[in-house]
């Protein structure tokens, strides 16, 4: 498998998903403040920032899982709150940080559930559903494991199964919350390669919350850096990953060198500041 590299986006497509001065809170605790963000069609964006900066919360709001206290989220120009859940589910797929599959559920069943928004009481398993599931399984290289229970898979395989479900859902937009958590490095690469191929080969607009800055810089076209619920920087990896930003956002003294493989910025930590 060759590394999938992303040249920085030169042309910006129409905005698919946008946050307009959103304020996000859990009960009384405000997590994200007055944040604006626009995500263009066909873009691959990574949201980065220290723990607790509100990046997962932002992703939840973009995916209609959390209603903004103020401001609004627009999906294709329409307020996402007023769009029927099922319509949203046909356009926008999301993978929570640690999704749980019921015990005994097979990979094929999991992927088949991705078709839920396209099904109805009378149309529960159309040829389209069947083809989409078979294709999603094959595309993610999960066909051989289709009959295995999800809980019997390794961490990397499990994440592939969930991505396969998101693929079967057939949405233009895909939001992933730390899809590489708990995976070893080679499986992190494996999962991100898969996501990158969804972007390049299937034209998906991808937003991913990532911890690893070097991987984020390598795979995403655009980085969005957050600190304390505020958007600090946004742009190409080279624009965002500067020594000043690392000091400011991550309290980290670091050098930035070109990644010898991909040429993207690579963070070499020196020490923690303060």
């Amino acid at each position, binding site marked *: *498998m060759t590394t999938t590299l992303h040249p920085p986006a030169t042309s910006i497509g129409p905005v698919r998903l946008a946050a307009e001065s959103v304020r996000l809170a859990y009960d009384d605790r405000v997590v994200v403040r007055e944040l604006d963000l626009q995500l263009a069609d066909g873009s691959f964006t990574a949201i980065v920032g220290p723990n607790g900066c509100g990046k997962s919360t932002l992703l*939840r709001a973009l*995916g*209609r*899982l959390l209603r903004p206290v103020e401001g609004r989220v627009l999906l294709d120009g329409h307020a996402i709150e007023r769009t029927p*859940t*099922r*319509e*949203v*589910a*046909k356009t926008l*797929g*999301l*993978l*929570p940080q640690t*999704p*749980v*599959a*019921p*015990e*005994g*559920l*097979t990979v*094929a*069943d999991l*992927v*088949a*559930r*991705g078709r*839920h*928004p396209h*099904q109805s*009481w*009378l*149309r*529960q*398993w*159309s*040829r389209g*559903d*069947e*083809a989409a*599931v*078979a*294709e999603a*399984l*094959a*595309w993610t*290289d999960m*066909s051989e494991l*289709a*009959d295995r229970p999800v809980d019997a898979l390794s961490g990397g395989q499990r994440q592939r199964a969930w991505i396969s479900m998101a693929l079967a*859902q057939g949405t233009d937009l895909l939001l992933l919350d730390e899809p590489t958590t708990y995976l070893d490095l080679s499986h992190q690469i494996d999962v991100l390669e898969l996501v990158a191929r969804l972007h390049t080969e299937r034209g998906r607009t991808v937003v991913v919350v990532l911890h690893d800055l070097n991987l984020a810089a390598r795979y995403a076209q655009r980085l969005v850096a957050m600190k304390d619920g505020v958007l600090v920087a946004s742009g190409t990896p080279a624009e965002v990953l500067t020594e000043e930003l690392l000091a400011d956002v991550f309290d980290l003294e670091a050098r930035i060198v070109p990644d010898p493989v991909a040429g993207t910025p690579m963070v070499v930590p020196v020490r923690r500041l303060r």
Partner: protein
Amino acid sequence: MTATAPRTGAPADRGRAVVRVGPVSGRFRWRHLAVPAVTAVVVVLLSAVSLGRGDFPIGVGDVLRTLVGLGEGTQEFIVLELRAPRIVVGLLVGVALGLAGALFQTFARNPLASPDIMGITQGASVGAVAAIVLAGTSGTGALLGGLGVPLAALLGALATGALLFVLAWRTGIDGYRLVLVGIALWAVASALTDWLLTRAEVTDATAAYVWITGSLNARTWDQAVTLALSLAVLLPLALAATRALGVLQFGDDTARGLGVRLATTQAAVVLLAVALTAVAVAAAGPVQFVALVVPQIAVRLAGGSRPPLLASGLLGAGLVVGADLLTRTVLPQALPVGILTAAIGAPYLLWLLVRGRRRSTL
């Protein structure tokens, strides 16, 4: 990476049948049909044997002939008028409890989530015992007593269900929270029942105690018909929830991501399960353990990742009617059916748990 062409029987379709007629399509597991089919046959046979048993024994053949309208006078009277109401109530109560358990357990993603554990049946007991004990007293007690036991039980169950719903609800219902709130309600309802029993006359206390155990003695066609009508409404609704249940099993975020209107769906499933429990308990008392054990047996027999509704309902019917048959034939003294449902169900579940490789979760 090679994209393998879909084999004959696409990977997702193994062990399943696919039906497509025009715009209508569906897919089901063979075992999800086979298990209910076999169970249905067993239930019919058990019912026929049970209808034949009593002071005036009638053979299974004669019972079946009577049921299809070919019996002779006396047998017809005994089977259809004297014994059938008991069996029909037993069957319907089993179906309702099996379904209620399957709905609760799937929804809460927790095998402990059953109306017995979560206080719904205890709530019904409070209502029923109050009606028995307070009948003939004055004031508000008399009002409760005047309701009659089934109605008081129904109200008790519905009130507890409503309380459960309100207390467990935040922005949606978390399954774990639902079970914990339910256990607390169970404790409160138990205490209330005990308090009522200590105040009761001995005869009332005995009557109340039989009711609390769950009994099919002296059921009438009126009760059977009322129960059947309730189920005629609730059963289609429960089966309609099947599609949503498959997705509700995932975490809330995933379910909403797949286009489920979470709050509405959760509310509908909980209310449906409470209603099924309430009508069953009103008819026969809290027949113990059926709702808890039957869905777990069903999922182990039929396979899959959650209790299948159809199989749960039929197995529930089988357990109640089978236990009733045993209490009336094998045991020296006719016990309330609820004692036996626990005595049969629990060891069977243990056997399945010990034998199976799966853990006790859904």
